[in-house]
């Protein structure tokens, strides 16, 4: 019995242990290898790290829900780009100019609605046709990217609005706006997954779909809601990032799905569904960002970052398999 608790504890704490290890390693290694005189554990550096985690992190929180539910969404990068274009382009519309600063919340709303709509398209197709979510979202990853290009050709879309930039660059209690959004999303989604019926049902469906159906849970609507949620979160991520940058290229957000899935898996969520935690994903996002920043700090090139992240991902999978030896996954091929 003690053994079981210890294992569970070990698994839950693994990502935080890894983060702690990274902090110590990069601080010590930075003393000898860093090109700059600044310490790695500098408070500004850490605040910046949180801010830079936000775009991937907000989407990763949504992906956690999707994966707990037993699905996957490969189209998040394309949704992110399309919502960013809607956000910036809508601010250029003549109607919006007459509204003054009220145009900003309206543009945000439009972007979020776009995200919800695209997520709903994915969710409805998965629900109504029964085609595997991997295939559906692989297709819509291409399709939504096509829509991105159709919107404005191969040109960048931009809009500069100082009110917007000021808002995005503001620091409240030391934390940047983007960080606040990340923390708020994490808190809200934690509440949704642990304290609401929808969250419990999402876990139940991912763990054993047949049992969930027998228990009277309607699988379809829950999947639809989850896809809408990740659509909105991808849009929110775009809103947070592009409010500051003000310009979007049609290729932006490519490979985001891979980064996001990496963070979610590092955080301990299972691809097979039924297990995973929002807080774990938050840790996974921080761990990846720490790794990128830390390797940069000790003078490693970008190629090392890709190499290390890939190897860590596989190592985590291997360790996880060792810790979960027994159980149903052993028979599943």
């Amino acid at each position, binding site marked *: 019995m003690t053994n079981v608790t210890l294992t569970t504890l070990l698994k839950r704490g693994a990502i935080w242990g890894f983060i702690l290890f990274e902090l110590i390693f990069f601080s010590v290694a930075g003393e000898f290898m860093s090109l700059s005189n600044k310490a790695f554990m500098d408070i500004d550096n850490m605040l910046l790290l949180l801010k830079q985690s936000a775009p991937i992190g907000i989407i990763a929180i949504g992906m956690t829900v999707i994966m707990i539910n037993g699905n996957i969404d490969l189209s998040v990068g394309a949704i992110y780009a399309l919502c960013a274009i809607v956000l910036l382009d809508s601010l250029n519309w003549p109607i919006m100019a007459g509204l003054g600063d009220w145009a900003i919340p309206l543009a945000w709303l439009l972007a979020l609605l776009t995200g919800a709509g695209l997520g709903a398209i994915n969710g409805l197709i998965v629900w109504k*046709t029964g085609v595997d979510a991997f295939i559906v979202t692989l297709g819509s990853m291409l399709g939504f990217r096509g829509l991105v290009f159709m919107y404005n050709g191969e040109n960048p879309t931009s809009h500069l609005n100082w009110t917007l930039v000021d808002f995005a660059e503001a620091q409240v209690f030391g934390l940047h706006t983007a960080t606040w959004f990340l923390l708020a999303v994490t808190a809200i989604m934690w509440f949704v997954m642990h304290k609401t019926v929808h969250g419990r049902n999402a876990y139940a469906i991912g763990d054993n779909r047949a049992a969930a159906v027998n228990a009277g849970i309607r699988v379809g609507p829950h999947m639809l809601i989850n896809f809408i949620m990740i659509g909105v979160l991808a849009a929110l991520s775009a809103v947070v990032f592009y409010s500051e940058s003000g310009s979007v290229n049609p290729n932006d957000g490519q490979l985001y799905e891979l980064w996001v899935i990496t963070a979610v898996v590092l955080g301990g969520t299972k691809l097979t569904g039924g297990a995973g935690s929002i807080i774990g994903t938050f840790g996974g996002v921080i761990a990846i960002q720490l790794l990128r920043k830390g390797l940069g700090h000790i003078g490693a090139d970008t190629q090392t970052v890709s190499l290390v*992240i890939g190897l860590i991902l596989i190592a985590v999978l291997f360790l996880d398999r060792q810790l979960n030896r027994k159980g149903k996954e052993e028979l599943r091929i």
Partner: protein
Amino acid sequence: MTALTRQDIGRLLARQGILFAFVAFMVAFTLANGRFLAPDNVMGVIRSSAILGVMALGVTFVVISGNLDLSVGSMMSFSTIVVLDLHDKIGPALAIPAMFALTMCLGALIGFLVGYLRLNSLIVTLGMLSAIYGLTLTWSGGKNMDIADKAGTWFGVFGQSSVLGVPVPILMFGGLAVVLAFMLAKTPFGRKVYAVGGNGVAATFSGIPRARIVFLCYVLSSFCVATAGLMQASRSMGSQNTVGQGLELSVLAAVILGGASLMGGSGTIFKTVIGVLILGFIQNGLLLVGLQFYVQYVVTWVIIILAVWLDIAVKRGRLWSPIA
């Protein structure tokens, strides 16, 4: 009786639906633009699909065995860069086998992780996508690779020359497709690939070495990737580090379009070739009609969903899913 006939038509549609769709597309585009079926255009389309096609052949084996391979794009960049770099250092005759050996080592590593250690193939190959990209950049130092003496080498034959009017990439794609189709359909190894993907537990109990079969599928896939890298390197004689980026998803789209189930156990080389050609001809047809290249993304999206939907709708006997 009528119901039976209708069911039969449905079965036929599902089984060969992708072929009908292919024919319908060809007719529609030919009506829209007479140049579409001109021999040089057809040859051009197949030739430009050949690299994607060769990779899709290998991935077909992996998918039939019930796994995924997201690392092929990144691995293709690796083999292209490696062969170009070694070409100037040890000459083409040694560079090519060395590149094949290195690429197949990567394939063997993935095969070991997925086959023998039974790790989830999606995440392993996702990790390898990132790791191999890092490896490629480390090898090249982030610089583009170019062959110094482009005129004085025979290295270009794999990408640029023709035999009896047929470009070599098409011959390589066609030849490999025939060999692999035979291997998959007519040899014990091929049967075992289907068995492992169809029902891994049953296959294990029948004495089929699941781990070894999965391992071999990945090695085969990496062999195809190395061939694609060779064709790419030979065609352009120089390359960026990101030459294969994103190809893994196009390859997967072609394989799925061909009707291979991601659950494993179904699919054929012939259907994958059709899937590759459909993607190629759609791209070309839409360009000839005067549409921008990105319209093909949207069209591909719709076609993939419809193709897979039709396939499973016929299998379960009803159009809409039973999900409540």
